[in-house]
């Protein structure tokens, strides 16, 4: 699954689409200058290049370059599905390869922010339709007929009156000589043949017989394996090490100190490099390292939360978004409500532990690995290893989970450093313990919410959040800048319907590396905002769905609430059942979830069922959306009820799945996902299903038991 073996020789290049790429402004942000480069390239006598995304060879075989990572979310399927629709080809005739990192060519390749589809689909549709029209035009010219008499279907252009047909492969050379049409007609969604259909994912067959190549499956001739004993304290240094015993372990070749870039600092450790993973691990066991842990704070979880709570009590915070006069409106309210919510630090814990393979060869560096942002890796590594970006080749393998962790560039840097030091290709393997303890983590947060109700409606609303700001970790960051994600997850119409509000944040400045964790701040904001909304509904004496309906005037939200009410049987709930609702919005998608809980024979609470309604606007594949929402709910269930990362003496405590426990099949409720059909702009799919879940669950528990849970995680057994 790499581009490496795909030489340019295998491609037919179609120079004419250079203009189209430029017209749609997707590949070459620099404009005309970049177009020149493209034209030079396509003068290559080996062929003609349709563009960076689609190549059709003279056999009619279509190759699609997927510029985004595949980490389970389905971009392997969704990007080609978009292209195949307007290009009029069968998905089965399409070969998909992962692109190498190349920002100039593809634009941002970062797979994050649920952006793969929503950021690119319009351009992809236009691009594919343009290619199709050029092939039609080429055929019409060959037949000397009007292009309007021809149409494209299943990789062919057909002359309607005569039934004559050309295979795309027979047309590429001629199409290359054409000027791309100024505009193309896109299909009406009701005519879609591939889009919006639950087309099976093309990566599934590879993932049921062991042939999908993940980062850890990469093998290179002469490759060595490394494991690294890193300082368990995030900013600690290596004082000295004794590798006497390590070097006695058969297979161990090198023991070297390493530093890898982690935001504004370097993580230090000692790498054991051997001819097998096992030997490297054995060598590490007997390695003795003395750490220098001076000059920074050795914090504990209790201290962190005490500080956040203190800050919330004593400081106003950095104002993010306000309207009206909260304090004055609160004075006039009929009822005043306050609540504080707490969410934990979390590890990403992808099933494929972090790993990276690097081969430094003096004038170039090649990298293979489970990487979410190949172009980011190029950008970070270029100054660090002293090579221009184009000499850093980043190959994306399949990712055994990503969730934001694998968008970070520490591990490719470390692999590059080790490969350079030992002058060989090296695969750096993080053990599960390394993966769980070393971060970056989802930041722990505390939310202080206050509101006033007047005449059964929210008249004043204030939310202050305390926690680490991810942006403050970068070198030179403005630490007095507010958290841009302060309201992430909050439904947009509330800003209209609530007359007075105030949102602010209090950044916690501690040396714990934190990074995007599936749905980022929305993953914790959603719990606070939607728990509080439920508390307000209860105080207002309103049904929680009606209370939201009353504050969310827009039709799109009303539709979602109606759908949620209908599918969950909200109105027909029985006396011994608890129902909870939560609705959040992030990455341009709105998701509502209803959780149903009941009591088991032993009196303990069990989660019976979850209904989700996803409104992500224009979409590609309903089955992938359902799968993503199912997975988001299970991941949220884990963060709400099973796992959390704690710190003591400056180190993460939980190390492996025996203490950082995961939700299991036994705890997973039935999940029913509904996808809304509309023509709104495409929103994200991989993340927005996560933020509403935990509040829907605790709201349901309140409905059943009257007990309000304001701190995650909690033990379902102890409710």
């Amino acid at each position, binding site marked *: 699954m790499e581009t490496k073996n795909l030489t340019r020789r295998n491609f037919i290049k179609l120079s004419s689409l250079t203009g189209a790429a430029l017209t749609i402004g997707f590949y070459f942000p620099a404009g005309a200058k970049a177009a020149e480069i493209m034209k030079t390239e396509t003068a290559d006598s080996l062929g003609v290049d349709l563009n960076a995304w689609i190549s059709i060879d003279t056999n009619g075989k279509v190759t699609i370059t997927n510029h985004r990572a595949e*980490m*389970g979310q*389905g971009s392997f399927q969704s990007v080609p599905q978009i292209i195949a629709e307007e290009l009029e080809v069968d998905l089965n005739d399409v070969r998909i390869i992962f692109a190498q990192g190349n920002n100039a060519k593809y634009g941002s390749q970062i797979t994050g922010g649920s952006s793969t589809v929503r950021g690119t689909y319009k351009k992809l549709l236009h691009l594919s339709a343009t290619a199709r029209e050029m092939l039609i035009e080429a055929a019409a010219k060959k037949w000397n007929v009007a292009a309007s008499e021809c149409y494209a279907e299943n990789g062919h252009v057909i002359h309607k009156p005569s039934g004559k047909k050309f295979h795309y492969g027979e047309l590429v050379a001629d199409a290359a000589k054409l000027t791309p049409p100024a505009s193309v007609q896109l299909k009406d969604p009701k005519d879609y043949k591939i889009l919006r259909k*639950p087309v*099976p*994912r093309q*990566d*599934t*067959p*590879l*993932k*049921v*017989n*062991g*042939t*999908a*190549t*993940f980062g*850890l*499956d990469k*093998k290179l001739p002469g490759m060595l394996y490394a494991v690294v004993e890193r300082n368990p304290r995030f900013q600690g240094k290596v004082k000295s090490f004794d590798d006497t015993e390590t070097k006695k372990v*058969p297979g161990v070749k090198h023991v070297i100190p390493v530093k890898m870039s982690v935001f504004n600092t370097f993580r230090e450790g000692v790498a054991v490099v051997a001819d*097998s*993973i*096992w*030997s490297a691990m*054995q060598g590490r066991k007997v390695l003795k390292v003395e750490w220098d842990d001076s000059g920074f704070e050795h914090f504990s979880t209790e201290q962190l939360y005490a500080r956040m709570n203190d800050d919330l009590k004593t400081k106003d915070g950095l104002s993010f978004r306000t309207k009206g006069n909260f304090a004055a409106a609160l004075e006039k309210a009929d009822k005043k409500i306050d609540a504080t919510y707490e969410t934990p630090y979390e590890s990403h*814990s*992808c*099933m*494929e*532990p972090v790993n990276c393979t690097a081969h430094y060869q003096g004038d170039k560096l090649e990298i293979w690995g489970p990487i979410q942002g190949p172009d980011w890796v190029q950008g970070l590594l270029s100054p660090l290893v002293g090579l221009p970006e184009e000499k850093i080749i980043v190959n994306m393998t*399949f*990712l*055994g*989970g*990503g*969730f934001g962790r694998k968008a970070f560039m520490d591990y490719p840097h470390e692999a590059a450093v080790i490969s350079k030091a030992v002058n060989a290709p090296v695969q750096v*393997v993080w*053990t*599960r313990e390394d993966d769980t303890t070393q971060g970056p983590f989802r930041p722990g947060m505390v939310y202080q919410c206050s509101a006033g109700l007047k005449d059964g409606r929210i008249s004043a609303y204030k939310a202050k959040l305390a926690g680490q700001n991810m942006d403050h970790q970068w070198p030179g960051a403005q630490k007095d800048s507010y958290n841009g994600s302060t309201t992430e997850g909050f439904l947009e119409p509330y800003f209209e319907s609530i007359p007075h509000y105030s949102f602010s944040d209090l950044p916690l400045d501690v040396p714990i590396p934190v990074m995007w964790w599936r749905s980022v701040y929305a993953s914790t904001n959603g719990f606070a905002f939607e728990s509080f909304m439920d508390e307000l509904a209860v105080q207002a004496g309103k049904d929680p769905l009606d209370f939201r309906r009353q504050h969310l005037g827009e039709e799109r939200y009303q539709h979602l609430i109606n759908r949620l009410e209908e599918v969950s049987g909200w109105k027909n709930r029985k006396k011994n059942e608890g129902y909870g609702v939560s609705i959040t919005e992030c990455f341009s998608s709105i998701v509502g979830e209803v959780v149903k809980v009941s009591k088991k024979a032993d009196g303990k609470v069990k989660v019976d069922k979850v209904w989700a309604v996803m409104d992500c606007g224009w979409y590609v594949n309903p*089955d992938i959306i359902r*799968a*993503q929402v*199912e*997975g988001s*709910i*299970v*991941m949220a269930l884990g963060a709400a009820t099973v796992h959390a990362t704690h710190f003591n003496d400056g180190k993460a405590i939980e190390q*492996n*799945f*025996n203490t950082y426990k*995961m*939700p*299991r*099949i*036994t705890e*997973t409720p*039935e*999940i029913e996902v509904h996808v809304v059909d509309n023509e709104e702009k495409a929103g994200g799919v991989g993340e927005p299903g996560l933020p509403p879940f935990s509040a829907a669950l605790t709201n349901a528990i309140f409905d059943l038991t009257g007990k309000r849970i304001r701190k995650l995680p909690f033990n379902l057994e102890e409710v």
Partner: protein
Amino acid sequence: MASYTLKINSKTYTVEADPKMPLLWAIRDLAGLTGTKYGCGIAQCGACTVHMGGQPVRSCSIPVSVAAGKDLTTIEGLSTDNTHPVQQAWIKEQVPQCGYCQSGQIMAATALLKKTPNPTDKDIDTAMQGHICRCGTYPRIRKAIKTASQIMNQKASAK
């Protein structure tokens, strides 16, 4: 270091290994069969599950010296062309997301269905609860095991 004979998927591999080396690494790095995955190294996640003498085992926690000579089956041994009913069911129900844990899940499901051709939800829970899927494909795993059971029953009755 010692020499061991591993019988994996009816093929014999002679490997030189430290007797304590977990079977997982022998399968992956010495036999070169990378479908079996490393997840935790402490028998908590099930990603490394293979069959030894027909039983599902955690290859990360079995020394190569113990596995030598025994009949071993890995994901590659089910079928390479996805004709095994469990593989077919996994495709039909579109189970995998990232896919990393699925080799282990499939090996556990296969062992379950061999022993219990018509598993109840409880049987499925018992057999599969040792397997972690961070993508949360559990609802589909449950469905796929039932689908695989049907496929197997249909095949059996066709014979």
